[in-house]
């Protein structure tokens, strides 16, 4: 069985979710629950860190789509950071860069959230 882990951090009003391992149809519900919890508590500024993610399947990608509309209407966003080239390619092929913002590091993503507030 492929391992998948999520760890959460907060930075001021931002939530940073770090993904680790294999995100596929079997592990996607775990991520879905995590994000759903945040959104239900109106924590809509979310940064997802992919630095330790080895694999993402279409079901994993779908999770982000499930929430993006709600998050944005609540004035938040889901931004991606620290993605390796292989994972980025998957996102890129599907066309995610047209819908989501990608950053090299969490700091850049945080900066972007800040600048939007101003």
């Amino acid at each position, binding site marked *: 069985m492929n391992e998948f882990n999520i760890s959460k951090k907060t930075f001021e009003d931002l939530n940073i979710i770090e993904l680790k391992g294999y995100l*596929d*149809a079997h592990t996607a519900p775990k991520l879905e629950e995590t994000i759903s919890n945040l959104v239900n508590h109106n924590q809509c500024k979310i940064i997802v860190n992919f630095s330790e993610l080895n694999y993402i399947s279409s079901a994993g990608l*779908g999770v982000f*789509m*499930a929430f993006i509309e709600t998050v944005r209407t609540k004035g938040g966003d889901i931004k991606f950071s620290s993605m390796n080239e292989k994972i980025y390619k998957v996102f890129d*092929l*599907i*066309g995610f860069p*047209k819908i989501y913002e990608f950053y090299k590091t969490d700091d850049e993503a945080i900066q972007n959230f800040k600048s939007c507030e101003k």
Partner: protein
Amino acid sequence: MNFQTVTGKENLKMFELALKLKKSLFSFRYNFIFLIILFLLLKITFLFKENFVISFTGDLILIPIVYSFVKHLIRFQEKKKFSQIQLLLGFIKFEIFFILFSETSLYILSPILKDLKGLLVKPTIFIGLISGFYTFVYLLFISIILAILTILFFTRQKKNIERYYKTTIFLLILGSLSSHFQKYFDASFLEYTFGSLSVVFFILMSYLNKWVIYLSRKEKIKVIIICNILLAIVIYSMIKSGDDTGINDLIPIFSNATLTAYKFIYAFAFVYPIILQILIIFQLPVTEVIEKKTSEVESLQNLSQMISKVLDIEELVSIIIQTIERITSSRDVFICLIDEKSNCKFYSNISESRNLFDRLSQLLTSKLNQTNEKILEIDVNEFYSEENHQIEKLIIIPLVYNKKLIGYILIGKDRASILDEDDLNTLKSIGEYSAIAIQNHHLLQKSIEKERLEKELEVAREVQKKLIPENTPSIKNLDIAHTFIPAFEVGGDYIDYFQLDENYLGFIIADVSGKGISAAFYMAEVKGIFESLSKILKNPKDILIQANKILCKSLDRKSFVSVVYAIIDLQKGYLRIARAGHCPILFLKNSELVELIPSGIALGLISNELFENNLEEVFFELEKNDLLLLYTDGVTEARNQNLEEFGTDRLNEIVKKSEGDCSNEIIQNIIEELTIFSKEYPQHDDITLLAIKYLGDKNERV
């Protein structure tokens, strides 16, 4: 031949008859009647002859008669299964009936009995008949009492008391028969010795009576009352029969031993209720403990029986709670089950406030996770203070299965109640039983779920198989090949060809996100959409835009479809191709491989202009032997044991090397390499490949 078979049959009939006869001869009823007839014949033939041999033989014949009658009565009890109390009551009834019978008889027979002494010297046939009648009545009475006592002795008996029983009966018989020697010497000495020995053995045996122990307190008191009534009746009847002119004097005419046996039996009837009472009085203090133990054992038995039957968790928990309520006589029993995410779920038969559950849950998760299999007692006031609750102490029994904590049983108690070692042991075993039951339930649930999923996947695979074309179309100027290898968990891959008209062929490769039945059904929808759109619209971009609009409405937000859609002009070799979120298109021309990635977002993700503006349609002219290879991510993401992916590089390399091969060969090459790469590692996604080689020649066209 014919004749022989007839004799054979007749022989068989004879044999059967003989068997029946033999069976009936030895059956109880015939023996019984036979013996009585034998006895009567003996008596009538030698009527009143004062012969020792004859009267002794007569009494000897009576022994098996009584024996078989007692046996018959015991068999009757085995069928009817009277309780011990019912048997004792029966004892009383027979006794009363017998007394009434004797009284009536005395009254009727009083004229005869008046000068009995004279009659006894020279008895008439009439007296003989009366004596015979009463002898049998006495024998009946003896048999019934003996049967009742025997049944009582052997109920719930664990020790082997057969030896005592046999000795008692043997002494009883010896004592009874010794009365025959009266004429030769003073045999009353023998009679009393054997008689009292038999009573002694009877007393010993009575002390070994086990059934009294298992009675409840209430029943024991009942038995004491019954015993006293019985005793009173026996004493009354003993005093009565002490009178000189009784029926007792009539009996010896017919059978000497019957009267003696009757006297001994009366002694038994006198002794037995006394001993029963003594036994009960000694046991009364421990009755409560025994009762409790018995009910505990019964409860545990019930529980273990229910475990295997109950499918519904609510019902199972409710049975456990009821069992604990019965044993601990507490009305506040909760069960907390911990799920995989270590959340507590509470079950209870009472509707206690949510507040308590919340507090308990906090307490359990914070305090107790470290504790192992020990039962804990906690003062409730420490963590929960609300006016109207009576629970003051909580007993917490952890439910542990395979060293894994799966929940707790919580029992609320008031301050006064104390649990001793015994109670704790019982609770512990209930905890163990319950843990097994709950775990069994979980496992069963899982296997049911698994079976359901497997069925579901079977349906999904069936759907998918029907949606994908079995054969490639044979089209002029094109060499087409495809392969589709479904994964166990249906991946939602889809390919199709649309013969638009003589000159145009449309084809598609798509991958619906997600897996299983939902992917299969979305795939069916995708097929429907493209089949209809391809008939109306003539360029890939328009088709994808329309398809996106439809899919955005119908797909759930998590799902999307990646697609490559292309149309080839078969005559001119013009290719128009658009990609929406799908894997790159491999284009091989003169041993040069190009990954075509025209921009495009997957279908079903966004419905606004963003999709339209980002969708690119590529147009180019195919030349002879140009090859297009379309694939799904199941190919590049196939893994081996080391969890390495097959990857685009390997795929591209194979395609590059395939220069000159036909479409089918190219696909075969890829599959071969894939198989070598992943070896035993299971395929986790559908693998789909579509190769199209253009064979049209420009020069021919001109």
